[in-house]
């Protein structure tokens, strides 16, 4: 890594101020993606602003609106949370599928969403559940948040503070891991709400996306059978040494069906 300044922020306001002060600063949450990227010199920030010391950013709370999860809450905390397991099991299930135990011990929800890795698990769950991302400046619906590969609607100086996940009637997240990285080669989150079904796909495209024809089919009947004959398009899907676009498209169909089965389980 190239040398940089390390700054531990005391509050969100402090972090935002520092971030806005120039000096090519970046935010550091768990560091599970950022630090490997810095080691590869993909980024060369002048300063890292550590959010870990900001108590208000961490924690899990269930309300009538849904599950409020602080941005620096770790994957392990989400995976192990008893209340979440009862109320919205798809969340701890997905969190438990991220990385390995050491990554889950450090990696955070906010970090994962802000990074928007095309193969990350959390974006699928956030989009699938129609989450709302709260920042120090505004709130952004998941449908507007993920804008492209490693790109989000976050502006300069904007910091995710918490995420609100509405509680679905039922939901499932099925992931087919990349054999090497264990990121999602394809991951599909299916969630049924009174207002309708949402299906979100990660790993397959440049960024997480919704599968509207699958949603329509499941709206009429929430069962695996409802998906009979439906296939996902391979247009614009990722193509790499582990999976071509055709195979990914096929896996989207398989994982969607499995997610439905899990939701019904």
């Amino acid at each position, binding site marked *: *890594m*190239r*040398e940089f300044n390390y700054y531990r922020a005391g509050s969100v306001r402090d972090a935002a101020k520092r971030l806005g002060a120039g000096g090519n600063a970046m935010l550091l949450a768990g560091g599970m993606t950022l630090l490997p990227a810095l080691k*590869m010199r993909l980024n060369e920030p002048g300063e890292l602003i550590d959010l870990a010391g900001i108590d208000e950013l961490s924690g899990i709370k269930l309300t009538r609106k849904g599950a409020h999860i602080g941005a620096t809450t770790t994957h392990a905390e989400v995976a192990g949370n008893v209340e979440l397991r009862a109320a919205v099991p798809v969340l701890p299930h997905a969190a438990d599928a991220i990385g390995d135990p050491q990554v889950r011990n450090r990696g955070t929800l906010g970090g994962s969403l802000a990074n928007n890795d095309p193969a990350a698990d959390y974006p699928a769950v956030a989009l699938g559940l129609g989450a709302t991302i709260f920042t120090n400046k505004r709130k952004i619906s998941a449908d507007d948040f993920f804008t492209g590969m490693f790109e989000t609607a976050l502006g300069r100086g904007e910091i995710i503070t918490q995420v609100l996940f509405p509680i679905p009637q039922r939901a499932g997240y099925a992931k*087919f891991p990349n*054999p*090497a*990285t264990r990121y999602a080669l394809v991951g599909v989150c299916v969630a049924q709400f009174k207002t309708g079904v949402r299906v979100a796909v990660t790993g397959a495209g440049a960024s997480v996306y919704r599968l509207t024809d699958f949603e329509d089919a499941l709206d009429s009947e929430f069962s695996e059978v409802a998906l009979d004959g439906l296939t996902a398009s391979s247009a614009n899907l990722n193509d*790499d*040494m*582990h*999976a*071509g676009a055709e*195979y990914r498209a*096929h*896996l989207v169909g*398989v994982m969607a069906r499995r997610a439905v089965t899990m939701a019904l389980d």
Partner: protein
Amino acid sequence: MSGDMGIGVSAPRTEDRRFITGRGRYVDDINLRTQQYAWFVRSPHPHAEVRGLDAADALKMPGVTAVLTGADMQADDIGSLPVAWGITSRDGSPAVEPAYPALATDRVRYVGNPVAVVVAETRTQARDAAEMVNVDYEELESVSSATAAMEEGAPLIHEGAPGNTCFDWEWLPAAMAPDARSNTDKAFDEAAHVVSLELVNNRLVPNAMEPRASLADFNPATGQLTLYTTSQNPHVNRLLLCTATLKMPEHKVRVVAPDVGGGFGSKIYHYAEELTVCWASRRLGVPVKWTAERSESFLADAQGRDHVTRVELALDAEAHFTGMRVDTVANLGGWLSAFGPAIPTVFYAPLLAGVYRTPNIYVTVKGVFTNTTPTDAYRGAGRPEACYAVERAVDEAAVQIGMDPAELRRRNFIQPDEFPYQSPVGQLYDSGDFEGCLNLARELNAYERFDERRRQSQARGKLRGRGMCFYIEACGAAPSQAAGQLGARAGLYEVATVRVHPSGSVQVLTGSHSHGQSHETTFAQIVAERLGIDFGNVEIVHGDTGEIPFGMGTYGSRSLAVGGTALYKALDKVEEKGRKIAAHLLEAEAADIEFTDGQFRVAGTDRAVSFGDVALAAYVPHNYPLQELEPGLEETAFFDPENFTFPSGCYICEVEVDQNTGQVELCDFVAADDFGNIINPMVVEGQVHGGLAQGIGQALLEHCLYTPEGQLLSGSYMDYCMPRADDLPNFVVATRCTPTPFNPLGVKGCGEAGAIGAPPAVINAVLGALRPLGVRHIDMPATPQAVWQAIEAARSGE
């Protein structure tokens, strides 16, 4: 007196304590005052002319001591990296061996090819400065696959190698020559059945968990160079440094390979980086350290396999194998690694008879230059490739003629009373009980109940398949003269010194090197057993040319068969001298002295002295036959084996395939091996487990993949799929024993077996699962996508 830690006991390891408490001492753990750090400037291009190099900006960077280039190296008369084995093409011409400079001077031939080194006060400074070295490359057309490199119009990689051919070799061992080809062709003409397969043996990256590292310390005052390096064979490294590259006398060079974190072949060679830090330290007068980053290891460590093979098997009407033809194209990379030309030839072809009585075998191999990292020995080294070709062909034959694959193998086995067996491809097999191993494996697999298990899998929506493999391999390299006739440029004996101290404790100085093999335990077990002393009173010293007289190191599963035998022979000498000392002390004839359980005894009497008494007498020779016998008790033996040793075994694997995703799950893996006698069963089992994991990795997960032009796609663990705990099953391992007659311990070697036998067993199982869907062939690794594509292709009738 050996207590409970003699030969045959699963003694827990002596070396464990330091590793489980974090007190191992690996090269990167060693730091010297005033040391500086090296960072290599490597080619980002697969193939390019180096038109110039400008280090001016780099030299201005903070902390930078020097930027050194290939031209500097030439000016200092540093030799190119040596090729340790010469191969001769079928037209009698020697293989093309282009000079391989540690730092490229005029042309780079693979991504990662070093062109310069930066030495600076910190590693980060060296890396920062390396980014500022401006190399003027003129990119050239490039090619990564060996078959593409052979095509007309392919870019020429070395001027002296038209068609990118390093060698075009045929195997004509004495047993077959000169009619190998015509006899084999005749067998095919007369065959009742012929099987033909085109196979790719996928390129692999060895990936020892410890990245390579070297720390060189030249003392200008004494002219002494000490190199700490991650090596499987420090003496060989010193030999090559002294005779080929750095050109210093051996007494001025000490090479230390301390704790080494795995090798699997990749730490055999004398690499560019360790030569460069030695030279830089000598030139700059400071210690210079280099530690590879993992992504650097992917570019700079010799890689394994990468064959394309056509194998054909001829059978008569009774399903006896009558002939085999094998034609292989081996990808050697951009330059020759030390044993690069030997692995796909003399370590490959002589194993192509497998465990079968196939009378006629004809083998041709082309070695081809490509714009990729050089290839060389990786766990198994030639034998996995041979075993894969044979065992895939045998299974395909069983399918074609509709015979149970176990029965087809059984019908063609070399029989126990035929040993020593002269194979048509030039090996004299020592011993074996193939049917015994087969039966053991079948029993452990509950072979007869497979259909039941298949139905259970079916009920879960999975396709179950079973695959079998029978391997034989050659260990214990090597009889030096035989190796010399085949082109080896070094001897392949091993050396051991047994140093008995006055108190009776023993140090063994062995040329074998342990980087996970457990010599500190197993060699001590041999000493404890032979001398009847406590296991805890024995220390095994390895990995330091400053302490150990000589050695050829550890590779090819040779340590016990060759190094262990050297130790055994040194112990013979200790015992013989001890007998003379005891005879003097007991006032008897040496011929009347028996040595058992640590006691020298006058036969048939109760008059005895202990080994400890004899040791003390040897060093305090007051009552001692000084006229006939020197004081002291220290003996050295060099052992050069008479033959290779030939472990063999039967592996059975069962898989379940999820046809929706193509995911293969290993359900069951049974290994029945014959390693001859066993010193420590627990250690042997561990070696088998590790080999199996690497073999399974090759079959299902691992693939070193380049773009057609030679950019490495699988350049880190993000893309190179390493086997993890949840990829693998528990293994069922068992052994049968037919001791080899070619060494006094009766041991054969066990380090590579798993990596040799597992790939065909796994792929045969995958094909067994997929055949009902019409799939006839799949290449390694059988990744989910590859399996899915094979299923799709079969369904659409492609």
